[in-house]
């Protein structure tokens, strides 16, 4: 029997996960090895110097640069608030004084009595890296970041948009083949990760954006809606940077496709739990797929990563059809003929025989199914 490998996406109730959380520039790691962290905890941060803004003080005071020192109320290194008086002229007999106020929050970098210029610096910009998943710090990379491990229910999506977000899981459909009704997305969905069924359309995505939804998990999405949402057509699947205010994880594909039973049931069983998701997808060698991570309780000695398993096709294996006809339908393998077989398109391929969940008996090219782990 052929060891035909059919790439399938991982959907599991429990797995050990390991995530690197690294700063873009060197900075400070705020946690130590063994610390338990929550998804929203900042684990490392760095402060970037703010922008320098030149400010012609002599000009504002209407004096020559060498006189600036006589009127100034602040010195280099001082913190300033917007509107705070930085210098005042003496005026005439105490009248007609000119006060110069700070144009921004920040600090004084430098005051020159040669040019009469001040250099003001905007506040430092904190760059933070959050834990993204609830878990334990298992490694600290000094000045750079940490590695976090946990035990989670874990679902791989097929395609996604936008970066990391977390939120509570909220089911908005009762069956995996339902199309989400826009009206169901209301204020109660704010900051939640909403579970839709077989399709979410453009209007519903817009509604989710307006209601402050954190993430959408859907079986299918329409390519034209995607184009409308992004304003461009995706040529090569490299996503994750979209600035759309929420994260979308598609579990099945493009068009209306019923969410896989296992995926739907798993999400349903964790309704109300907190999940971390991202839509980062890179479909090329070294593939990256979107992830849905739902942390579960664990003891530290349970954190042992399992070796990757190779799914195989055998009689009785549960499969999902991943191409037309019968796209998205689940079935069981009933036969694995070894000889090449001609299908409707006249292509000669290795096929399998299967009985689908709707009772239909079909033959399908082996390349057009994926194995579902049970």
């Amino acid at each position, binding site marked *: 029997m052929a060891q035909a*490998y059919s790439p399938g996406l991982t959907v599991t109730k429990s797995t050990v996960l390991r995530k690197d959380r690294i700063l873009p520039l060197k900075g400070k790691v705020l946690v130590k090895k063994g610390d338990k962290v929550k998804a929203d905890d900042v684990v490392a941060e760095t402060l970037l110097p703010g922008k320098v803004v030149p400010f012609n003080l002599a000009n504002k005071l209407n004096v020559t640069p060498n006189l600036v020192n006589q009127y100034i109320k602040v010195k280099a290194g001082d913190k300033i608030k917007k509107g705070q008086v930085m210098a005042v002229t003496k005026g005439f007999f105490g009248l007609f004084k000119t006060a110069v106020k700070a144009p921004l929050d920040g600090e004084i970098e430098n005051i020159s009595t040669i040019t009469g210029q001040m250099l003001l610096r905007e506040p430092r910009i904190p760059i933070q890296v959050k834990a993204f998943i609830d878990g334990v710090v298992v490694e600290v990379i000094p000045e750079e970041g940490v590695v976090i491990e946990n035990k989670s229910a874990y679902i791989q999506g097929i395609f996604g948009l936008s970066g990391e977000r977390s939120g509570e899981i909220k089911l908005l459909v009762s069956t995996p083949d339902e199309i989400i009704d826009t009206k169901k997305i209301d204020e109660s969905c704010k900051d939640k990760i909403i579970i839709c069924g077989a399709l979410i359309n453009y209007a519903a995505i817009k509604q989710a954006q307006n209601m402050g939804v954190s993430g959408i998990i859907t079986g299918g999405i329409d390519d034209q809606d995607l184009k409308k949402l992004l304003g461009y057509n995706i040529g090569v699947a490299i996503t994750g940077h979209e600035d759309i205010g929420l994260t979308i994880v598609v579990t099945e594909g493009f068009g209306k496709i019923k969410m896989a039973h296992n995926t739907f049931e798993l999400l349903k069983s964790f309704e109300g739990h907190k999940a971390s998701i991202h839509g980062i997808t890179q479909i090329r060698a070294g593939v990256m797929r979107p992830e849905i991570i739902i942390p579960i309780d664990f003891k530290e000695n349970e954190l042992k990563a399992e070796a990757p398993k190779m799914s195989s096709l055998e009689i009785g294996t549960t499969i999902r059809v*991943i191409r037309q006809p019968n796209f998205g339908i689940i079935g069981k393998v009933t036969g694995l003929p070894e000889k090449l077989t001609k299908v409707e398109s006249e292509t000669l391929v290795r096929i399998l025989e299967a009985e689908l969940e709707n009772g239909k008996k079909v033959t399908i090219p082996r*390349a057009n199914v994926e194995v579902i782990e049970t």
Partner: protein
Amino acid sequence: MGDTQKLKRIIATDCGSTTTKSILIEYVDGEYRQTVRGEAPTTVEKPLNDVTKGVINAVTELEELARLKYNDKSIKFIKDDTIWISDKEDEGVDAYVSTSSAGGGLQMMVTGVVARMTGESAERAALGAGAIVMDLIASNDKRANYEKIERIRQLRPDMILMAGGVDGGTTKHVVELAELVSAADPKPRLGSSYKLPVIYAGNTSAQDIIKETLADKTDLIITENLRPVLERENLGPARDKIHDLFMEHVMAQAPGYNKLMSWTKGPVNGKLKNIPIMPTPAAVGNIMQTIAKINNIEVLGVDIGGATTDVFSVFTEDRVFNRTVSANLGMSYSISNVLATSGLENILRWVPFEIDESELLNMIKNKMIRPTTIPQQLKELILEQAIAKEALKYAFIQHKEFAAGLKGGQKKREIADAFSQSTSGASIVDMMSLDLLVGSGGVLSHAPRRNQSVMMMIDSFLPEGITQLAVDSIFMMPQLGVLAEISEKAATEVFEKDCLIYLGSCVAPVGSIKPSKIALSARLELPNGEIFEEDIPFGEVRLIPCGIDEKAKAHLKPGKGLDLGEGKNQEISCDLHGGVVGIVLDTRGRQPFVLPNESSVRVPLLKKWMKEFKVYPEVN
């Protein structure tokens, strides 16, 4: 070469971005023949993320099919999770060789000082080399430095092209950009077996500082400034460097590549030695050059894969060889990019039935996210072949420009052109003088009917005058290209007997006339004594059966104002080669070849041509 030793059995694989193909070559009755072939999806996705798993699967299929063929259950090619190389006669194989393009398409980041000036020049150089530009980072692009660094890390580019500054100008900005790249410390997406290539094509005065900043962390290559002065672009050197680096370093790499490198072994001068894995386009290029050399002809070849489409040509009396890799035109990973490049209308113009646009768009995207699937339904096959025609067309356009670019030199850009795009130079690719057009790659080699390959190749390459067509029988040119490294005899024998399949010839007058006028008066004496004689009006296709190794004596007279290669209105008498499909007389016009925009006119025409080509079952 190790031709002196006896090799009884050799396994060769080609790890493509989508599929890993395996072939078994055996020494049977005094000659080498390709006897069994297998394939399996390439495994570059988690959790396996190891190209050798796909190799094992493809060779397992080979093993099973060999057992079936010889009714011998003891045949075994795999032992201890690796390919069993043994010098004993009745076990394992004598050698294992492989090619790889599993790394897939080329995705780059470019940097420049001013986004609209050097930045755009750099982008054009990258696009010209067939890359996708993931992002353009410029000194003036308003993002904070940390955002730029994060972006470089997140996107995991295959390569970075750095430009900026005219020669002798300020070095400050370009050095700042180099510092950003250095701070990002970019790692190649395919693991640590090589450093990320960074090409510097900016201000020459900054070269030393750039070396100091980047030489340790990256695989730094310095080339000529792509914008030496403001008014002149010099994209050629940077573009060529990108192309070479991609082929040599990025494309073949894939997760598990190091492990695979330790597997490929064969006897050289009596000792078992490692046989380096060859990038697929290098291997196919070797084969194409060999075909041109042996027959002393002009050859144009194409290998259309899942992520990339490679075009090869040998033209002019000096037999100048050119090879281009269109890194993001392909039938699976890059299929959506074919759509983005060509536009939906251009794909739909080849489709002979009405289809809901959103259904087609979703189908294309689904293929992109599940690249290893194959069309089971006839409708989907027709759609994929329509997309293939556009992918081939654009890869060929790129090749023509590239082949010209190599001969040409610098392109002067006036200040007024600085904000616009344009192409340059005359191509050495001449379809009229071309002798043989060869197709390879899944969609051409595995088309259910060879007639479909003929149609796809003619519709996309639009051969002119008289051209012979051939196809790689089961997509094994890459493997033969690397096999030649250990046994030229085996490679040559298999190539001649099992690899190249002649499809036939295409006769196409160049020019355009009114549809009612006669475009070609043809008289063909066929080998079986039959005579084909017809005055064919403009806008038609005829397919005349004429078998492989057969020739038809032809007298051809082009319509008024049309040219078959000897000049306008000049008649030709010649032998036309047959093939498994036959001789195609194509009077649909060249330069231009026009498909009507109106679907009510176009669809009946497509159906008529498809019926004549005998491509699909329903329109027979």
